[in-house]
């Protein structure tokens, strides 16, 4: 175990990409599983608490310590094995998405979830049930977790395979590897039926493994995981289609999401007029008439590619006057260029916010598909009426927007915060969620209260207590 107590050596671990900052007196870097078990046991007997740290790209302060010691998993960074036939990849928890991507290149297999931030670790992704652009077709991280090697807050361990331990209705009763019995009840709720990552995953007769995915490290530490892979498509066609009108973009979207559509994208990402404006200085070729853009990807193969291109063009022509301006990507470097177009946005917003020395105000709400357009229009009129500078982009295929408000003064920020709360509340009222992918962490707890009443949040607490009687692990996340 490496232990650092000189703050200068671990300052960056006190915060994450949300800029929320905490405090701690020491950083522990374990080098074996045994060391972690030992530390957890000591925490229970001596009464200290521990916060697990991944790469710190989280946007909710979930890895930020509030006085606890920090436990960084950075030495658990190896890819253990690839089982090609079973299409499974075993990785330790600190392996980063970019490493998984590089490792699998050329193998004919791929790991479908594709969160934008490639420096994030798989442990962090499991903590948040991260999702990404391809979630539209493939679902979030949860779907691709087959096995978790877990250390519980008590110091007991759990080797958890999907399909082995289920709830009996709304009740769990099982034993750790060491034979200690754990039992608790689940609140009888139904989660919003949209992309969702706020509070524990709860379902009648659910698989225990699903409780740990999206638990923000509150129920146990993940040492390693086995990931399900899929055969990589032979060819992927990427396109950025520009639109000259709000309604036409929605007509296009509804069409490509319908079963009879001539193309069925695996990814649909949205950029609004302000996003395009923000990117124009760096990317001069954005057509001047464009008010919106959609980035889509269609899976294809060598033989079908030409006719798929034709279909993309025909569909685009039907819904926008700017079809002739469509950008296309076929080679890896062209795909990278489109992905960079997407990744440049959060960075551009981040720079602006820093420039004004303001905090980030970005929604992570998702709403049912049928309400998306009205929700979007309501957001725009609220922002315009209140004269706020805003940028909206996001995973429109999953009816999931990131609406960012850029404020210049503290006074403006207070006003913006009110509007922001209204928008989140509106998503809940429509049957959506307060957080579709980033989680609750330490800075979005008020929003969880918009989604669930006290009774539900209390039963979340009871689940936490069933695993962590002495409040040892990741205290301050979720509730």
């Amino acid at each position: 175990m490496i232990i650092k107590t000189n703050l200068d050596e671990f300052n960056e671990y006190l915060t994450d990409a949300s800029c929320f900052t905490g405090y701690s007196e020491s950083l522990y870097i374990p080098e074996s599983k045994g060391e972690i078990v030992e530390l957890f046991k000591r925490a229970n007997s001596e009464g200290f608490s521990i916060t697990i740290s991944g790469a710190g790209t989280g946007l909710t302060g979930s890895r930020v310590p509030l006085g606890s010691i920090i436990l960084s998993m950075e030495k658990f960074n190896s890819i253990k094995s690839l089982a090609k036939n079973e299409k499974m990849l075993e990785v330790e928890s600190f392996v980063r998405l970019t490493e998984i991507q590089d490792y699998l290149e050329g193998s004919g297999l791929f790991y479908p979830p594709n969160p934008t931030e490639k420096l994030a670790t798989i442990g962090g992704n499991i903590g948040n049930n991260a999702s990404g652009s391809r979630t539209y077709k493939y679902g979030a991280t949860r779907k691709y977790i087959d096995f978790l090697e877990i250390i519980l807050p008590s110091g007991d361990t759990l080797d958890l395979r999907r399909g082995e331990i289920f709830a009996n209705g709304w009740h769990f009763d099982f034993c750790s590897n060491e034979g200690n019995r754990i039992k608790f009840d689940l609140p009888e709720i139904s989660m919003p039926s949209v992309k969702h990552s706020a509070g524990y995953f709860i379902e009648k007769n659910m698989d225990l493994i699903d409780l740990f995915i999206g638990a923000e490290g509150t129920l146990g530490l993940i040492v390693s995981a086995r990931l399900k892979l899929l055969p990589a498509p032979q060819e992927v066609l990427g396109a950025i289609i520009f639109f000259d009108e709000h309604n036409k973009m929605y007509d296009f979207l509804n069409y490509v999401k319908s079963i009879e559509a001539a193309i069925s994208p695996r990814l649909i990402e949205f950029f609004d007029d302000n996003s395009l404006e923000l990117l124009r200085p760096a990317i001069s070729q954005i057509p001047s008439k464009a008010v919106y853009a959609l980035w889509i990807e269609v899976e294809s193969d060598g033989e079908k590619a030409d006719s798929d291109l034709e279909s993309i063009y025909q569909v685009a022509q039907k819904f926008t006057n700017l079809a002739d301006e469509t950008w296309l990507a076929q080679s890896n470097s062209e795909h990278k260029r489109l992905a960079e177009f997407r990744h440049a946005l959060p960075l551009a917003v981040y720079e602006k916010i820093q420039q004004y020395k303001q905090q980030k105000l970005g929604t992570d709400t998702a709403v049912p598909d049928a309400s998306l357009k009205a929700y979007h229009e309501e957001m725009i009129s609220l922002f315009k009426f209140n004269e706020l500078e805003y940028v909206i982009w996001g995973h429109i295929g999953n009816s999931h927007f990131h609406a960012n408000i850029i404020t210049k003064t503290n006074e403006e920020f207070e006003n913006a915060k009110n509007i922001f709360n209204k928008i989140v509340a509106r998503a809940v009222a429509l049957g959506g969620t307060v957080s579709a992918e980033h989680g609750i962490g330490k800075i979005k707890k008020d929003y969880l209260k918009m989604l669930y009443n006290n009774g539900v949040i209390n039963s979340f607490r009871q689940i936490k207590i069933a695993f962590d009687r002495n409040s040892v692990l990741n205290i301050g996340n979720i509730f």
Partner: protein
Amino acid sequence: MNILVCVARVPDTATKIMVGSGGKAIEQNGVKYVVNPYDEFALEEALRLREKNGGTVTAVTIGTDANVDVLRTSLAMGVDKAMLIKGDEPTDSYYVVANIAKVAKEISPDLILLGKQSVDYDSLQLPAMLGEMLEMPSVSVVSALTIEGDEVKAERDIEGGKEQVACKLPAIISAQKGLNDPRYPKLPDIMKAKSKPIDTREAEKTTPKTSILAIEIPSKARAGKVMEATDENIDEVVRLLNQEAKVI
């Protein structure tokens, strides 16, 4: 103005490269090929000159049938004609130059544009050899270009600075990054390019002047950079992390 643009077909810069079983070439299986990135600057410059002055732009490549894809990309970007000099896959620069020179003599372009190097074998020899063979002025590593009548003014990147060079047409210009911002091929143009004719002719064999003995993957040691802890360096550190290390 008639412009000839030389286009090389190179492995996608975003592809993992491995050495093939013979140890003298890269493993081609699973590798996607693209237009050499420096040639994209050459293509873009040619198209802009044509848009200003009229004339035709011809893209030429040398290699196997597989090379047709880079000609299609060139056509999608907007060149008027595409020519494949069909022969062995080129590894010896002399073979490439001899064949391109032959074409150039036939169509007598006012200007030959090409990338400063191709990012596969990095021989950097073409622009100069071509100049010698065609007895034309050859200006390499050009990052800004103006042509008025037959007066060429080029700005070259040199160690630690810029150099201004003048010559007359016909001339050879090799393109450096920064010369322009190459246009993204648009979907309808990509589709139209698929059915355009490709002028194909046989390559002339030459006696190789060089041959490849072996190639290997460089070891992955990371070169660290030490910078002084001054406020002035903060912007530079951010820039390096963003542009070179690509971690932020």
